[in-house]
C-alpha cells in the first residue's frame, strides 16, 4: 500500500520521484532478498525486497551479529558470537548446513574478493582469525589490538584492515604474510573499515570519537576526518558505525548509531550532504546489488529502514527480529 501510494505521488510530483518509481520497478524485476541478523532474537530475518516484507525467520546459533554472503551468493556466513563459531546458512533451503571454526566470540568478518578466505574479528581475544572457507579450517591467527571489530579488505585482496575498539587503531595487515604492517591511530572506538571501490582509501568510523577518518591506503596517513553536526541532536549521540560506499565511489552513507540518522557524504568533497532519519540506534548498512536501495539495521526499534539511494529518502521501515545487527543482500 505504502509503496503504491509513494509511487502515485512520485508520478504526479517530481522527476526525482519518477526515479524512485523506476528503482522499485527494477527491484521487482530482480527480486532482491535481504538477510538481517537479530542479535537477541538468535535468528535471521529473510526479507523479500519486492514485497518489502519478511518472508521467513530462521533460528540460528546464539547472538548472530556480522553476516556476509558466500562468493556464489548461495550461502550466508553468520558470526554466531556466543556459539563461538560461524554458521553457514544455505539460502535455498534456509537450513544451517555447516559450521566453521572461528576462534571465540566472532563479531564481524569480511570475505576475500576471491571468496576463498574469511577474515574474522574475535572480539574477546584480540585476534583476527584467517579462515580457509573450502577447507573449513583456521589458516592463521593474527594478534591485533583490544576488541577487534571492523574488517575491510581491499578490492585486490592484498590488504586487510582491522579496527580495534579499545586500542583505537586501524591495523593494516598484509594478506600474503598475515602480518600487521602498520597501525594507524584514529579517534576513540573505531567500529568499521571500508575501502573505497578504487582501493585507494579506507574509511574508518570512530563511534565514541564521533568521526570518520579517511586513510590513504598507500601511505597510511589520515587525509581527512569527516565530522557530523545535526541541529537539535546532542553531539554525544552522534556515533558513526557502519559505512557503505556506492560502487561508483561517489557517495558514502554512514550510520550514526543513537543519533538515529544515516549521513550522506559526497566522497569527492567529504561534505555531509544530508542526514536521513531512520530507526533507533542504526549500526550496519548494505546496498542492493544494483545500488538503488540501501538498508539500515536499527537495533533499538527492531526494524530496518529502506533508503532510496538516488532520492536520498527513507521510503519504508520493516519490522524484523529482536536487536537487528547485520545485513546482507543478494
Amino acid at each position, binding site marked *: 500500500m505504502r509503496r503504491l501510494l509513494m509511487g502515485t505521488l512520485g508520478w504526479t510530483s517530481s522527476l526525482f520521484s519518477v526515479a524512485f518509481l523506476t528503482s522499485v520497478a527494477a527491484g521487482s524485476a530482480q527480486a532482491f532478498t535481504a538477510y538481517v541478523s537479530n542479535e537477541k532474537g538468535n535468528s535471521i530475518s529473510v526479507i523479500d525486497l519486492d514485497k518489502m516484507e519478511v518472508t521467513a525467520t530462521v533460528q540460528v546459533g546464539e547472538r548472530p551479529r556480522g553476516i556476509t554472503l558466500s562468493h556464489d551468493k548461495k550461502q550466508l556466513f553468520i558470526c554466531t558470537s556466543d556459539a563461538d563459531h560461524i554458521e553457514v546458512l544455505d539460502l535455498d533451503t534456509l537450513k544451517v548446513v555447516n559450521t566453521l571454526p572461528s576462534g571465540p566470540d566472532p563479531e564481524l568478518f569480511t570475505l576475500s574478493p576471491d571468496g576463498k578466505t574469511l577474515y574474522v574479528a574475535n572480539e574477546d581475544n584480540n585476534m583476527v582469525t584467517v579462515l580457509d572457507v573450502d577447507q573449513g579450517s583456521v589458516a592463521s591467527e593474527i594478534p591485533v589490538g583490544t576488541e577487534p571489530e571492523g574488517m575491510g579488505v581491499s578490492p585486490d585482496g592484498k590488504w586487510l584492515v582491522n579496527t580495534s575498539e579499545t586500542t583505537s587503531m586501524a591495523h593494516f595487515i598484509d594478506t600474503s604474510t598475515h602480518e600487521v604492517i602498520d597501525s594507524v591511530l584514529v579517534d576513540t572506538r573505531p567500529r568499521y573499515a571500508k575501502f573505497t571501490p578504487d582501493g585507494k582509501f579506507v574509511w574508518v568510523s570512530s563511534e565514541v570519537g564521533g568521526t570518520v577518518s579517511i586513510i590513504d591506503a598507500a601511505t597510511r596517513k589520515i587525509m581527512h576526518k569527516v565530522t557530523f553536526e545535526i541541529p537539535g541532536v546532542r553531539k*554525544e549521540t552522534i556515533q558513526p558505525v557502519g559505512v557503505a560506499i556506492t560502487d561508483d565511489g561517489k557517495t558514502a552513507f554512514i550510520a550514526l548509531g543513537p543519533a538515529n540518522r544515516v549521513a550522506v557524504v559526497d566522497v569527492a568533497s567529504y561534505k555531509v550532504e544530508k542526514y536521513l532519519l531512520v530507526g533507533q540506534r542504526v549500526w550496519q548498512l548494505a546496498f542492493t546489488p544494483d545500488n538503488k536501495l540501501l538498508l539500515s539495521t536499527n537495533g533499538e526499534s527492531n526494524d530496518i529502514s529502506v533508503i532510496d539511494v538516488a532520492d536520498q529518502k527513507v521510503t519504508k521501515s520493516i519490522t524484523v527480529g529482536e536487536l537487528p545487527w547485520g545485513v546482507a543482500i543478494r
Partner: protein
Amino acid sequence: MMAAKPRLSAHPWLIASSLALLTIFSVGSLPGSAMAQDEGGASPSTTPQILNVTIGYLTEAIPEPPPLSLVEVVAKDKGLAGAKVALADNNTTGKFLKQSYELKEKTVAAGGDLKAGLDDLVGQGAKLIVADLTADRLLQLADLPEAKDLVIFNIRAEDDSLRLKDCRANIFNVVPSRAMKTDALAEYMAVKKWMRWVLVSGSNDADKAYADALRHSAKKFGAKIVEERTYEFKAGSRRSDTGEAQIRKQMADLTQRLPDYDVLAVADESEVFGEYLPYRTWDPRPVVGTQGLVPTAWHRSQEQWGGMQMQRRFEAAAHRWMLERDYSAWVAVRAIGEAATRTGKADPADVHSYLVSDAFTVGAFKGQGLTFRKWNQQLRQPMVLASPLMMVSVSPQEGFLHQRTPLDTLGYDEPESACHLNK
C-alpha cells in the same frame, strides 16, 4: 564449547615482526598527525623509542564488612583486578607503539606508613599512582612532599569535599562523587515524578555523607523529603538463621506512620540494613539510594555500548564480576594508556596536562567519551541506575541540560566549588 586452538603469544610475534616493518608513531604526535612510512620501507630515522610506563597501585589493609546478601560477591582484589585488566589492554595497544606498561602494587597496614608505601612504589619507578584509599588517607598521601610531582588517581573516595574544597593538583578523581550519584538518582525520580521522598539514614559518617548528598539532590531537582529517620545498628540485627522474622518486624517499625510519600531513599553505605528494606516497608514503596535502585558508575548488568565485552574480559581475568571500584581502576589505568598512546609521553607532568586538555577522551563503555572537569579534576561520566539484576536507566536523563555538557548536571558545578585548578 570453545574449540581448542593454538594461540600465538604476543611476545614471539613481536620479535618476529621486524622493527622496520612496524611503523611507530613519532613521540609526541597527536591523533590525526600519525606518522606513516612507505610500504615496507625501512627508515633509520624512525627507530622506535621504547616507552616503559610504570603505574603504582597503593591501598591500605582496611577490613571491609562482608555484604549483607550471600548472593553478592566477596572480592579481595576489588579495584586491583580492574587495574590489571586495563594494564593488559594498554599492553595490547602498546605493542604496536613499542610501549610497555607495568603495575606495581603496595598495600600498607591499616593506619600504616603511607610515605613508606609511596617511597617503595616511587623507588620502583612508579610516578603515576592509582590510590585505593579513603578521603583522609588520600589527602595525607597527596600532601606528602614526595607526592608533589606525581599524578594520583582516586578510585575509592566519593567524598564531595574532595571536589568542593579539598582539591589537589596531583589528584584526579575517577570515582564519581556522592553528589554525582544522588543527582543521577534525583533526575530519574524527577522523570518518574516520584518527588516525595522519605530518607532513612544509617548512623556512620559515610551514611551521613550520603544522606547529605541526597538532601542536596532533592533540593536541586525539586523533590521533597517529607520525613527523615535514622536506623541505629544493634548487634543481632544482621543476618542470622532465626533473624528473618525479627528483620521483617524491625523494617516495618522503622517505616511505620509516615506521611504520604513516593519512594524510600536509603543512605546506608555501611550495608547494615538497607538491603533489608525492600518488601519489608510498612507501605508498599520502592527503595532507592545505597540499596534498591542504586546509582553507580558500573553494574554487572551493563551490556550496552560494548559493556558486554568489558564484563567478559573482566570475568575471564578475575573469575568474578566487575564491581564499581574495579571499573574506576580500569578507567584510571586506561586514561594513563590513552595519554601515553596519544602523546608518546608518560611523565606525570605530561600526563597531567594531557588529561586536562581538550584532546583527552577515554572510551569506557558509556556510549560517549569521558573527560575530566578542569576545575576539580573529576571524571565526567554517565551514571547507571540499576536494580539488583538489571540496568534500569542511565543519567543524565533526556532533557536535563547544561551549558557545557549534560554530564555536568551530575554533581556540584563549577560555581559551587572552591576549586579552581588548571586556570
